[in-house]
């Protein structure tokens, strides 16, 4: 906890230095000493640096820049999780808890939204409050979706899967985690400054002209982007350089491939959104006019830059979910991953093509550019996406399906992503999009792809790796109950929204025509059931973590490397460094093995039990 106190102190000092210094400069050049938004932006910049330095960057890292000896703290037990710890397993758990908490909070926002939408007129809040709540829900969930698989499981599992003892840059890894708490804090602080009402997309010029709370959204998005860039550099370097001997590209588990693809996307796209957020801030605080039509600026520019990041970001969310799904489906079908190369090509194909489709969000934006190339590329991206279905279906066909909770979630992802994908085709078709854009069809579509793919994938991951993370087994009965409640209520919540979309209910509205009230009431009730299913999940996790039965090293009898070490893994992951001698998914091939652990100093090879 000491690290966090120091971080908070650092943030406060940083803010005072930043905002105070700014005031001083303003006085010197003869301006008013204080201007709210400039003060917030500059103060925040310094506060963020102060927070990072205080929380551990200075002790573990910064002192070295000045030639001072580093300070390392030897913490044990729960205290490690509140410190600048560089162990990738600790960072994974930190990510998991932070973002599950964020998801919970954003889910509560969603419950409030649905309560308001029970009623076609004014329900529990006025439209202004609704817009802010909707924006908060959106941005919280976007932050969650971008991070919640690659953060926790990318960090915890990827080094284990490739046989490394840690990430390539452990301190950068800790840095990328400790940037993230700033995101929810900023977003919630915005409420003290009238919040912001432009949704998670923050379209200019609305975002240039609205209340001060908007600046917090921009800063939060920039901070999140910074964190994911640092994470992406780390993941790429780790996977490229830290693979165990014999772990060729062709033997890389599919989940590692999905994280790698995600990292490429984050690396190459994120700074677009960083820049566009900065442009909005500059427009607001310094009188610049990127999006101001009066001086020749162009609001469409915002959408180009924004979607050039945010469409790839959709795959940043979806690909790790699909990676987990393929991973889980393979292990629980007891059969090799069907068409492994095609699945990898699918991921990489999505990565490359996702940079060509951004303007399909802008078919109705009145952009002067020709929309047809974007329609073509968007429809074509369904081909690499189809490879993922090919791999999944080919794997379960003729398998020996072991229908445990992770497997159920994995299969549900296939179903949900199928609906999400097919309904996306309609949106990619320009004539149909003219009708469906900005309606509830879009809401249903992206909830099917993000929640249905990523959050269901997350659940599969949590149940699948729970024994590895905790050393204990979750309660299977409760897990299945959670699955069925969540799966059914998820579908009854979001599938009626397709009907609403076709029948012209537009999105982001607090009040709507009374003709839609019956369906909306139904959706709200389903949403509450879906929300409550997470209570089962939380109870199961907490209870099993404390009281669950011991799981052993490899309860699923899986072949990948993370299961070949104890649960939870020791400090450096493997007692002896592994060597890879076979494919990770060779189920049903007698005598095959994925890895063995040579004992240093002896010539004998210890065969891993398979």
């Amino acid at each position, binding site marked *: 906890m000491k690290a966090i106190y120091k971080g908070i102190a650092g943030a406060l000092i940083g803010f005072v230095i930043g905002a105070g210094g700014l005031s001083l400069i303003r006085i010197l050049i003869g301006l008013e000493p204080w201007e709210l938004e400039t003060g917030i932006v500059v103060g925040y910049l310094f506060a963020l640096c102060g927070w990072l330095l205080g929380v551990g960057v200075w002790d573990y890292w910064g002192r070295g*820049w*000045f*030639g001072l000896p580093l300070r390392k703290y030897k913490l044990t037990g729960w205290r490690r999780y509140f410190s600048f710890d*560089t162990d990738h397993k600790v960072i994974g758990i930190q990510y998991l808890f932070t973002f599950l908490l964020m998801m919970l909070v954003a889910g509560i926002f969603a419950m409030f939204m649905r309560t308001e939408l029970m009623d076609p007129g004014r329900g529990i809040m006025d439209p202004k409050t609704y817009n802010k709540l909707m924006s908060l829900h959106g941005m919280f969930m976007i932050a969650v979706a971008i991070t919640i698989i690659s953060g926790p499981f990318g960090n915890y599992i990827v080094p284990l899967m490739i*046989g*490394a*003892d*840690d990430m*390539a*840059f*452990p*301190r*950068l890894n800790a840095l990328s985690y400790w940037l993230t708490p700033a995101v929810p804090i900023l977003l919630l602080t915005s409420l003290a400054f009238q919040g912001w009402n432009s949704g998670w997309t923050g379209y200019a010029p609305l975002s240039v002209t609205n209340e001060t709370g908007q600046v917090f959204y921009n800063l939060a998005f920039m901070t999140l982007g910074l964190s994911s*860039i640092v994470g*992406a*550099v*780390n993941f*790429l*370097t780790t996977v*490229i*350089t*830290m*693979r*165990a*001997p014999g772990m060729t590209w062709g033997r890389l588990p599919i989940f590692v491939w999905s994280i790698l693809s995600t990292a490429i996307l984050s*690396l*190459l*796209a*994120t*700074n*677009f959104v*960083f*820049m*566009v957020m900065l*442009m909005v801030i*500059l427009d607001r605080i*310094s*009188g*610049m*006019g*990127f999006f101001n039509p009066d*001086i*020749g*600026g*162009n609001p469409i*520019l915002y959408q*180009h*830059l924004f979607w*050039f990041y945010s469409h790839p970001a959709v795959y940043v969310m979806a690909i790790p979910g699909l990676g987990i799904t393929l991973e889980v489906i393979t292990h629980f079908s007891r059969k090799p991953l069907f068409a492994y190369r095609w699945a990898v090509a699918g991921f990489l194909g999505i990565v490359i093509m996702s940079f060509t489709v951004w303007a399909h969000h802008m078919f109705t934006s009145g952009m002067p550019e020709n929309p047809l190339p974007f329609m073509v590329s968007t429809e074509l991206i369904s081909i690499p996406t189809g490879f993922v279905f090919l791999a999944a279906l080919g794997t379960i066909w003729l398998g020996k399906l072991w229908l445990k909770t992770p497997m159920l979630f994995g299969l549900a992802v296939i179903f949900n992503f199928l609906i999400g994908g097919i309904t996306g085709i309609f949106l990619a078709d320009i004539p149909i999009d003219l009708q469906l854009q900005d309606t509830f069809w879009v809401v249903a579509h992206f909830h099917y792809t993000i929640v249905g793919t990523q959050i269901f994938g997350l659940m599969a991951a949590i149940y699948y790796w729970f024994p590895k993370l905790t050393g204990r087994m979750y309660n299977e009965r409760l897990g299945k109950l959670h699955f069925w409640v969540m799966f059914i209520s998820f579908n009854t919540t979001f599938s009626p929204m397709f009907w609403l979309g076709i029948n012209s209910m537009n999105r982001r509205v607090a009040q709507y025509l009374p003709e839609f009230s019956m369906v909306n009431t139904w959706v709200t009730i389903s949403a509450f059931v879906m929300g409550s299913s997470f209570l089962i999940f939380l109870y199961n996790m907490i209870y099993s973590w404390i009281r669950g039965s011991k799981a052993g090293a490899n309860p699923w009898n899986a072949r990948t490397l993370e299961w070949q070490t104890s649960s939870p893994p020791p400090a*450096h992951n*493997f007692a002896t*460094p592994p060597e890879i001698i076979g494919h990770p998914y060779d189920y049903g091939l007698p005598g095959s093995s994925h890895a063995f652990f040579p004992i240093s100093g002896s010539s004998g090879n210890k065969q891993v039990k398979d």
Partner: protein
Amino acid sequence: MTTNTLHSSRFSQLYINRLGLWLFILSESVIFVALLFTRFYLLGVERAPEINQTIGLIITGLLLVSSLTAYRAEVHIAQGNRKAFMNNILATILLGIVFLIGVGIEWSEAFDHFPPGTLFGTVFFTMTGMHAFHVLTGLLLLGLLYLRGTQGAYSKNDYWGAEATIKYWHFVDIVWVFFYPALYLLS
């Protein structure tokens, strides 16, 4: 960047660090790609005729020379010649500072012709500002490098800190290679 010891990697720590740095630079260059895109999207190939060509050419030259001194510093430290290394770093820092002063003069002139409230001003100040910010961070890093140098850090076998800083400095130069024609020369 980091100096932890790894026993499971088949690559040297130096190689890992280099790869990480290159990836970071790749990612950072996206900021400038976005700015160039903005410049062409909003303005086409137009530019303000009032822009001061003399200052533009001078600061371009300064940055170019600073890249040479940075390069020389790296060669010298790779040979273990610390004195020459330090002198070249110092020269780089001075050139960088003069560059920033040049940008400052350019800004004060630009305020009269195309303030941030005009379209070209918006683009000009953001592009040069973003670049100057990177020059500033580069200068801070070079300052740290110099400080560590006086403390006796870096030898011909261990000069990753110097190499990384110098690579970053070259990257800042590359950005200007693209920004200079985009702001001053296009028509």
